[in-house]
């Protein structure tokens, strides 16, 4: 590496370290997160009453409670208190003010009159209108030291950087397993990524609409180390999960193009066969000198209808051409 570049990188890294250390000295506790944490405390005048007390008078949320109890969060019982570690008030805040004055008799009376008794939900944490980092913090305040490595790069991932929070994708009350079902995944992602939805409608496409593979087959929505939230460390590794026959390495490589399949392919969808970004022979002529274009239409057709009619091992081969070179014909 160029020594000047090495020095510049060292200086840059040192700058980060020094700035961070300075901030350590001057901002204890960590202010920005504390500001968000204040949003999650709930009303200071309310008290925690327990889930059973919250739902004692009315049963509109019984299903939600049942689902939470049946989930991974619900089955964690504290040995000390013998109570669930996570319950409604863990996220929604202390509930005493919300249920103040509500009695079973009142609920029954309202039900007879066709009315649904409302609790004073405005005294609870207004999760829906929190800023994205605070919404995520509702979850991260617990899911931050449980060695959950699917969140390994969450904070610097594309979603977090662009203010997508946990609740934008996860519906915490949808059911006990809390995992997004494969039938729902496509619609969930395409809610925001609607350009991608259109690309999957092109004639050559990966079978996302057919629900044979899913967005999470290639992407890690919680963040990753490389661009586009791809789930592996290189583009090639993502593709060869399923297309291992193209993995190589080969004796005769296609220069360094095989390190990035998107040099030639458009992974979501394409007008052209085999997800190619451009039609043959134009795709290949962008980088290679074409064969002779003699007067004979037959010869032109033979050479130019599809380059891969002859150069069929275009991803790499261990067998030379008859001439001894690596032209991918064998």
């Amino acid at each position: 590496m160029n020594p000047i570049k090495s020095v510049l990188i060292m200086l840059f890294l040192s700058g980060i370290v020094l700035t961070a250390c300075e901030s350590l000295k001057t901002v204890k506790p960590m202010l920005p997160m504390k500001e968000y944490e204040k949003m999650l405390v709930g009303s200071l005048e309310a008290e925690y009453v327990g889930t059973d007390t919250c739902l004692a008078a009315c049963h509109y949320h019984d299903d939600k409670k049942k689902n939470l109890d049946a989930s991974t969060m619900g089955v964690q019982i504290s040995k000390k208190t013998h109570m669930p570690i996570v319950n409604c008030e863990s996220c929604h805040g202390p509930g005493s003010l919300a249920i103040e004055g509500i009695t079973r008799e009142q609920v029954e009376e309202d039900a007879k009159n066709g009315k649904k008794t409302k609790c004073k939900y405005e005294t609870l944490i207004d999760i829906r209108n929190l800023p994205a980092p605070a919404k995520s913090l509702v979850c991260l305040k617990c899911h931050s030291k449980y060695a959950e490595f699917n969140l390994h790069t969450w904070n610097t991932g594309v979603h977090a950087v662009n203010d997508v929070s946990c609740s934008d994708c996860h519906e915490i009350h949808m059911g006990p397993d809390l995992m997004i079902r494969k039938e729902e995944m496509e619609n969930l992602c395409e809610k925001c990524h609607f350009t991608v939805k259109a690309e999957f409608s092109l004639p050559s496409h990966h079978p996302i609409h057919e629900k044979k593979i899913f967005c999470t087959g290639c992407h890690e929505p919680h963040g990753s180390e490389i661009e586009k939230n791809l789930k592996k460390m290189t583009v090639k590794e993502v593709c060869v999960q399923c297309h291992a026959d193209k993995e190589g390495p080969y004796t005769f490589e296609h220069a360094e193009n095989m390190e990035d399949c998107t040099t030639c392919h458009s992974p979501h969808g394409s007008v052209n066969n085999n997800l190619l970004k451009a039609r043959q022979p134009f795709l290949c002529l962008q980088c290679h000198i074409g064969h002779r274009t003699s007067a004979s239409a037959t010869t032109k057709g033979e050479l130019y209808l599809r380059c891969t009619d002859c150069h069929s091992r275009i991803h790499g081969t261990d067998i030379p051409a008859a001439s001894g070179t690596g032209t991918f014909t064998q």
Partner: protein
Amino acid sequence: MTRLLMSLFVILAAGIPAGFAEEAAVEAPASQPEIQSDAGDMPVYQFPVIKPEYNIYGGYNSMHLKGSRQAEEYRVITDSLVFGGEMRMITYPHRLHLDADIFSVKDYDADVSYAYRDLALFRFRNNTFFHNLDNVRLLFGSVNALDAPGRHYGIKSSMNDFLVRLKAPDFPAHLYVSGSYIEKKGTRQDMALLGSGSFNNRIRTSQARSLDWTTKEITVGANSLLGPVEVDVSHTEKRFDPGSHNVLFDSYASAGAIRNEGLFPRSMNPETKTSANTLRLHTLYSGGLSASATITKIDRNNTDGGAKSDYFIGSGQVMWSPMTKLTFFIKYRHKEVDFDNPRSIGSIEGIAVCSPANNAAGIYRCQIRPSVSSMTDTITGIGRYRPFAGVALKGEVTYEDVRRDEYREWRIPRETERTAASLSADVRIARNVKVMAKYTHRDSNNPATNVEPENADEGKVALSWMPFLELNTSLGYDIAKGKSDDIYIFAALANKRETKRQRVIAQVSYLLLKDLSVGLSYAYMDNKVRQDLVYSDTAGGAFADTSVPGKDVARTYMVDASYMPKGKFLLNAGISHTNSRGSFSPSNILGQAVIGDFSRVETNETVLSLAGKYPITKTVEMGLQYRYVYFEDVLDRPYDDVDDGRVHAILLTMRKEW
């Protein structure tokens, strides 16, 4: 030196927050009530009784095909019985979930998961489908087609993955094993070039090739909270086995100008082995400063051909929020790729492919170019600023440097430097109106391929508007332009390239009535390139064809409606139409215009779907689906590898719930 720098950054990135991590450490949720009880009289939480839920369904799927299977590329187009179901049983401390759908023997999926409290988790998923493949026609010149025209090719792909994870009681430490097993079986078209090896003796061949490929991968790992950081280590082994038909042979009865008589191998799918070791560590996610780092070493080995490649990849990310409104993100990535391919080939399947004896003139030698090894460093800095509620501004800068070995052999640059800068804004103009705009500029100094522009600009705008509760609209426009003034590979002959890519997307969804919603969407996509191309001429020189246009254009229209009167029945209807066109138009300097004619294509795809569900009783439901697909080859020429196809599919099911 670079590895040292990278390692130092990784250690610092993970260690910086160590000093304050304990202060920012997550406390036990305040919601945990303090239970006051008499000594020795601890209350015991009663887990609620949750009844198991089951449903099963059975039915019949009838499909009728006319023409090309491209109409339903990923379906088995035969009549079949269908059945499936779902079971959910949650009896504390056990949770069991089973879900299976079987449409045919080549199209089914299953999902099984079991958990014991939070201590043990098991999950297995299978997804099996059939991919109908092309059977392209070899036209012009000498052809040796060994397969029947119109023969149907296809591959059944079965993808299985599993996870077993064990957790230490009351402590976040896990041991896990995960893996995948992918099997591909079927036949596909195999193309190759036969003949003596002389340019004037070309024989293209096409034949059916049986496949029986398996890809196996297993990962063993462990992770745990260790004070201020969490650490994960894992080891992965992967094997690709091409099965018993991994190479084909051709027999040459007599010597030609270059190739001697004898048996020669071709179209080999080699067996490969991959090993990887990965270390990941990160700080807590909830502080104002958090960091993560990953180091991985991957070794790949082609056991048939002898080539090897090693990868060393390290990355570190830091998020720092000095104030609520301002956040910085820094990412660094270092990648080393080292290829080692053989300098000579002894034999393939016992046959000496590079021996002079194989050459009639006795001078044949294999010319193996050493593969390109490289080192890449990428650093990205992002700043996000929220001046006031509803507005977020973001700036991003990326610098990447690629250095290559063995570049001269391939006539590519030794070093490529890339820089990119972008600015974006997300603004909530009103409660129900949101706008996003982004501009990106990229520069690439000495790109290694002509398809990478030397400089490029991209702009994106997206608007979402909900004028009232029942109406939701969104509109997006994306344009990217690229330019190269000095295409490297063709040197003095040709040097210009311009690209333009556009996307326009519009969507509307409207709740017409309480139970009736409709949606409309339109998408326009194009990719246009204009580039100088170079061809050989018959005198052995080369000539340029300047500013040759190539383009792909597609338009998609979709309408769907859903009617769901409560407790009665459900009706869904949808229709979509996609028109796609591709072409490239060389000039006719030496008669090459006809080449463009070979590659033109235009298709229409129309899909109509109707589905309904009707509850016969509280627990029994009937379902009926009809799907019609018409795939049209508009130009209807033999060159374009597409043909008309129509499919009608009717699926009738009965479902019972408990």
